[in-house]
């Protein structure tokens, strides 16, 4: 009898310590501007909303690899961005990183990740050289899922020169605004036109009346708006009796900008886009986001690119199944079958192309009856 009890006890112990397969956890580092200038926070929070929804959807599929999202706020500060990326590499041992809003911050930490052989999916930063400066390094660890400034500007200029004779530009004095201004000037020159007026404004200004007087007096029919405070340009129009068409950065598609500027004033504003809300899939995503985040959801195209960046990264992690940066990079470059919400193709990357969006995926959107729709021209 004692032997039976002993056997039963041993069996019980063995039963409890029997083979248990621990689920592998991979840390995905996320760096975004979640405090600081309001425009930066709008970008950062919207992209993160998309990422989080993508993670929720990924987890609903019962993946074999668990994902731990490690999110840091870079406060739109390049030094802090570099410091949190170093923390992600050294302390958190994240084998893959997503981020951030300010192009200057990405350009500051991308070389560190490239040297450490850790893949970066940049976004929602849009400066053109983010991927191009690394693509010749074999292999490049720098990818991006976001708008690309060059494609956005080219689309606007192609339409602009076709539709208007006189084009003006208001840009901010930040690095972003100045670089955009140079790209616009060069692009227009290549199309045989020149800006009739070019005006700048510091990031913290409250009134663009002097700049808009210059636009009006130069007879600008189209004013390109590349200032981070997207709403400021509309304010002096009523007092100056001047109603040019406004076109610019994809930021102009934010629901927050529409709310501040007003439905009437923003009607007809044109911007770079990569999400067509006429597409049923995009529409369904938009409705889901509204339900999920309520009034905090304010930027469909940003959220969609955050969602797609998340989808791509989580799918890659699932495929590799372990914290191996080099294997993750290779899998990322080869990823296929992405069911993107934005215009991102099913196979976004190749050894010579590390952008989710290429020139043909960027189109122009226009505010019409309270919604951004595809501009036909």
């Amino acid at each position, binding site marked *: 009898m004692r032997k039976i009890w002993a056997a039963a006890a041993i069996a019980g112990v063995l039963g409890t310590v029997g083979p248990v397969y621990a689920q592998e956890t991979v840390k995905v580092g996320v760096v975004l501007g979640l405090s600081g200038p*309001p425009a930066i926070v709008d970008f950062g929070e919207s992209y993160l909303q998309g990422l989080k929804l993508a993670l929720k959807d990924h987890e609903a599929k019962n993946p074999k690899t668990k994902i731990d999202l490690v999110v840091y706020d870079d406060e739109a500060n390049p030094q802090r961005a570099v410091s949190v990326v170093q923390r992600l590499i050294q302390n958190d041992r994240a084998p893959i990183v997503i981020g951030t809003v300010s192009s200057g911050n990405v350009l500051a930490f991308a070389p560190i990740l490239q040297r450490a052989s850790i893949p970066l999916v940049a976004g929602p930063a849009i400066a053109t050289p983010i991927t191009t400066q690394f693509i010749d390094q074999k292999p490049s660890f720098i990818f991006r899922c976001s708008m690309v400034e060059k494609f956005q500007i080219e689309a606007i200029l192609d339409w602009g020169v076709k539709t208007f004779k006189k084009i003006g530009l208001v840009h901010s004095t930040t690095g972003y605004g100045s670089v955009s201004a140079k790209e616009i000037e060069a692009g227009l020159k290549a199309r045989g036109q020149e800006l009739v007026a070019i005006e*700048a*404004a*510091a990031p*913290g200004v409250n*009134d663009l009346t002097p700049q808009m*007087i210059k636009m009006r007096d130069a007879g600008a029919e189209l004013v390109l708006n590349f200032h981070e405070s997207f709403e400021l340009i509309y304010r002096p129009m009523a*007092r100056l009796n001047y109603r040019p068409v406004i076109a610019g950065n994809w930021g102009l598609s934010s629901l927050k900008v529409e709310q501040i500027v007003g439905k009437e004033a923003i009607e007809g504003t044109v911007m770079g886009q990569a999400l067509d809300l006429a597409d049923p899939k995009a529409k369904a995503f938009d409705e889901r986001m509204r339900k999920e985040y309520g009034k905090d959801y304010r930027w469909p195209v940003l959220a969609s690119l955050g969602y797609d960046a998340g989808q791509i990264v989580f799918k890659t992690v699932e495929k590799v199944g372990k914290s191996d940066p080099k294997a993750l990079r290779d899998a990322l470059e080869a990823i296929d079958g992405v069911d993107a919400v934005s215009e991102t193709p099913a196979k976004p990357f190749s050894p010579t192309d590390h952008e989710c969006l290429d020139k043909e995926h960027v189109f122009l959107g226009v505010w019409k009856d309270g919604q951004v729709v595809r501009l036909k021209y």
Partner: protein
Amino acid sequence: MTLSNVFQLLMSGIAVGAIYTLTAKGLFIAHLATHRLNFGQGDFLMVGAYVTIGLMLLGVPAPLVLVGVLIVLGLLGWGLERFAIRPLDRAGDQTGGYAWVLTTAGAALILQNVVELIWGKAAQYAPPIFSATRNNVVHIGGVGIFVEELAIIAVAFVVVTAFYLFLFRTRWGKAIYAVAFNPEAAALLGVNVRGTVVLVFVLASLLAGISGFLVGPLVSVNPHMGLVFTIKAFAVASIGGFSNPVGLLAGGLLFGIVEAFSNYFDSSFGDLYPLIAVLILLAFRPTGLFSTRAADVR
């Protein structure tokens, strides 16, 4: 440059200058009585703008909104004196002479974070105060002026006049000067020194409240908007001289006008020129344009 452009720039400069004047006035009155400055004066304005937005969007009529804003800002001014200034006075020299810089700047940071928690970090829509839409422009001789701008210019002039009368013609005004001159002697003469100090902080805060109530539809309202106003109010107070209420009005309007014209002539550095002009002015007239050079006997 056409004449109508000159007038347009003048008007928008005067309107912005009026906001700077009201903010600088808050700095001035607190400094006058206590030799302390509220480094969060611009953030008090920001709180005024947010409280206005919150109440307006709830459908509260504008006059009641103003009353609400003044109550909130009055309490904030009292709180600032009670918790950020008075404890330092009690501690005396142990805290060093400038600990109030830290406590007032700290209070400003707390306000920014509280506003972020309640309203979020994004810029906010500010409903118009005097009309249904935000395009309530009055055209005078080809120059377009927003009704809110007219209001803020009028308020700046009224407040300057009221302050002038208050400081030089009333018992409370004399009490402020007495406290500024010598708190101990003022106390011996029966002046309520503590009450006077509380009064100036509440008054400074109410000024920020009035500005905040009016500026919402004119500027970009966000939790970090205050710092720019604080910095420019310092510049304005330096031009006007920290002890002259009329000088502040002249300094504020001058600063706003120079800013509008410098943005017209060179928008890349438009915000820089007025500040450089202030630096040059202070190099030659350290007491400002309107203040007399006299030994400070306080």
